[in-house]
């Protein structure tokens, strides 16, 4: 169902803001994760993991859900559709993947924050988990950049469903044209 221009602009504004905010906050998370991994000052490491817990819960997670939902609304409310064009489908899958991985990793990040609050870490404490958080953030940025590039370039290509719909629309409009 097509949206009215004013509503469409509002939905697009929400989608762009949440998507860009998501990418920016994951970049911030990566900075903190690197700082937490390499810093030798206990208080800095402690503050870093506490900050990462808050950043994930109150910024990254809300932005990711807002980006996913506003993207679905945006595609359903415009002629692009949700399953007609490959770039929309691929972007949707990437967003679902990134949000799922984020939700899956929220609990360990929260636990690491609690552990950091209880006592300062040494360089070797939870090292594998701390390396994994850096890797997660790098992978997240890569996925979000890919999604952004897809939205900007919009590579051509109809899905099988989109192709069928286009043919049906052509057939419907053909008799109208011939009758004019």
């Amino acid at each position, binding site marked *: 169902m097509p949206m009215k221009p004013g509503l469409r602009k509002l939905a697009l504004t929400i989608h762009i803001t949440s998507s860009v905010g998501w990418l920016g906050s994951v970049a911030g998370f990566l900075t903190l994760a690197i700082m937490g991994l390499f810093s030798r000052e206990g208080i800095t490491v402690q503050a870093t993991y506490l900050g990462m817990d808050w950043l994930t819960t109150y910024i990254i997670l809300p932005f990711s859900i807002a980006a996913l939902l506003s993207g679905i609304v945006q595609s359903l409310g415009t002629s692009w559709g949700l399953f007609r064009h*490959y770039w929309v489908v691929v972007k949707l899958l990437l967003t679902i993947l990134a949000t799922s991985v984020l939700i899956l990793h929220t609990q*360990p990040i929260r*636990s690491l924050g609690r552990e950091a609050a209880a006592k300062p870490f040494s360089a070797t404490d939870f090292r594998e*988990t701390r390396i994994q958080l850096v890797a997660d953030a790098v992978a997240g940025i890569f996925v979000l950049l890919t999604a952004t590039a897809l939205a900007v370039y919009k*590579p051509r*290509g109809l899905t099988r469903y989109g192709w069928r719909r286009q043919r049906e629309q052509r057939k419907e409009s*053909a008799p109208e044209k011939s009758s004019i």
Partner: protein
Amino acid sequence: MVQSSPGSDNEDYVTPRWVKVFGTIALVLILIFAIIHLTGHGLGGHSLHGMGLKP
């Protein structure tokens, strides 16, 4: 991308090349990820035990 002559009923559906390339890369990445996890070379799991947060 659809190879067709406009208005023709004999159009053939063709999957775009970029989708095939993208799908192949995604498949390879998923396979690498699965192999790393199955062989136990991952950096941790998703549980507190797996993430090394509990003894």
